[in-house]
């Protein structure tokens, strides 16, 4: 069964159409890039998968089920902003995740925090932006989820942090899970992707295997991306 299925999925905000009759099937066991400029509907699609938005038309299914408590229990979502209760210590956040998510591995999280020399007694709010982003990624990737939704995990981070993020995604990769990474900077992650989806003004203009795309167009995914989205 597809990990994410969208059929005729449409989301309108007043008169603006954020997603326009999308049909999509994403299989488990793949790392898929959701690429498009800002405002192309990437975050809208991800929020629909989490029932943070309700479709105007059509539907989105996670493992065949409508988004709800059951799907959220097996879906790890990394929003594109700080989203944790920032008055808590890292230690408290790890406990919080462990309490709420059955698929959360405290050992994995603590190992990764130790590797980065992050002090678990530190209050989240008092850490640098880069460290906060890493903590959020660590907590998200320490879950053994069926679907990972990573919204712009590499936007605005330095190259070292970007490499760390990519390594973390690869090292926690579960062959049965779907990893969907939204980005407007495809070059940074294209080597990691099995498939890529180009989203333009709420419609899918391309959904292809990255190696096939490279062969077919005789250029990198990034080069092709820049061509499609040239303004």
């Amino acid at each position, binding site marked *: 069964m597809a990990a994410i299925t969208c059929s005729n999925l449409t989301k309108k905000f007043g008169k603006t159409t954020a997603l326009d009759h999308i049909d999509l099937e994403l299989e488990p066991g793949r790392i898929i890039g959701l690429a498009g400029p800002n405002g192309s509907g990437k975050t809208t699609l991800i*929020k629909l998968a989490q*029932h943070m938005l309700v479709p105007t038309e059509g539907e989105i299914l996670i493992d065949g089920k409508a988004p709800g408590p059951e799907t*959220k*229990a097996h879906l790890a979502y990394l929003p594109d902003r700080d989203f*944790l209760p920032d008055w808590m210590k890292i230690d408290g956040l790890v406990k919080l995740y462990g309490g709420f998510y059955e698929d959360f591995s405290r050992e994995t999280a603590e190992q990764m925090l130790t590797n980065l020399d992050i002090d678990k007694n530190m209050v989240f709010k008092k850490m640098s932006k880069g460290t906060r982003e890493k903590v959020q990624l660590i907590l998200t990737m320490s879950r053994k989820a069926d679907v990972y939704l990573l919204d712009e995990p590499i936007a605005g981070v330095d190259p070292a942090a970007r490499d760390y993020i990519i390594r973390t995604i690869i090292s926690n990769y579960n062959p049965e899970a779907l990893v969907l990474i939204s980005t407007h900077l495809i070059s940074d992650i294209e080597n990691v992707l099995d498939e890529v989806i180009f989203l333009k003004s709420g419609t899918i203009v391309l959904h292809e295997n990255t190696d096939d795309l490279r062969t077919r167009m005789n250029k990198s995914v990034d080069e092709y991306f820049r061509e499609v989205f040239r303004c």
Partner: protein
Amino acid sequence: MLRKLIAYEMKAYGRILVPIYIALLALAAILGLSLKFLPEWTTQNVFFVFAVLLYIILLLSVVVVTTLLAINRYYGNLLGREGYFMFSLPVRSSTLMVSKTLSAMIWTAFGTIVGFAAVAMVSIVAFNGTDYIEFKQALHMFYKEIISPNIGHVIFWIAIMILVLVTVIVRVYAAVAIGSQWSGHRLLGSVLAYVGIKIVETIIASVISSVDFLKNGVEHLMWNSPADVNGFTNWRLQIVVLAIIAVQIVIYWVLAWYFTDRRLNLE
């Protein structure tokens, strides 16, 4: 899951309210002690006046901080940035809302208890239990003469108090959920939504209270005098009053749920 959510709310409230409670109770004890040991000059001492002032401020801040926290646990935690975390948890939106409502009620109860305790503490410490036996007798009398014969009435008013508290909380949640639809002007939107809700409520209330038997009936209920308005006896009137409040709660709950679950608009 509800238990875990409430445990999380306990931490979020507690880290701010518990220090205030401790400060308040400590200050109450200090006031009591100074009244006991330094009776002559204490009342004129500038520090004593200052302490009394601080005591009153702390008492008030229990009320204000609890109210602001209760609002912010919905407005900020659920519908703000942290909403991305809260709405990713494997629970229904309604469960989140229940956890917020129950927590607000629990901390209102805590605040009330601590407030009374702080007031009581001053006198208990100051008079070192000399009045204790009298106090106990008075309490016993109060129970025997007032509470016991009117137990049904007392239960009714406690139920009313609880339901009104729920109404107040859910009304704020509905206003906040509606107001948050206005991206970029959430706070203003919430205030306007609250004012709007209150206006509609006042209009409806004035229509309802113009119904004769209800107007008279509530008065009867208030003083627990035997009523027989249009054949409505006390307990029937009580049910009508409770039902009216319950309907309010349902309406606000549905409004809050609709704008929180179906039309969520996170920052």
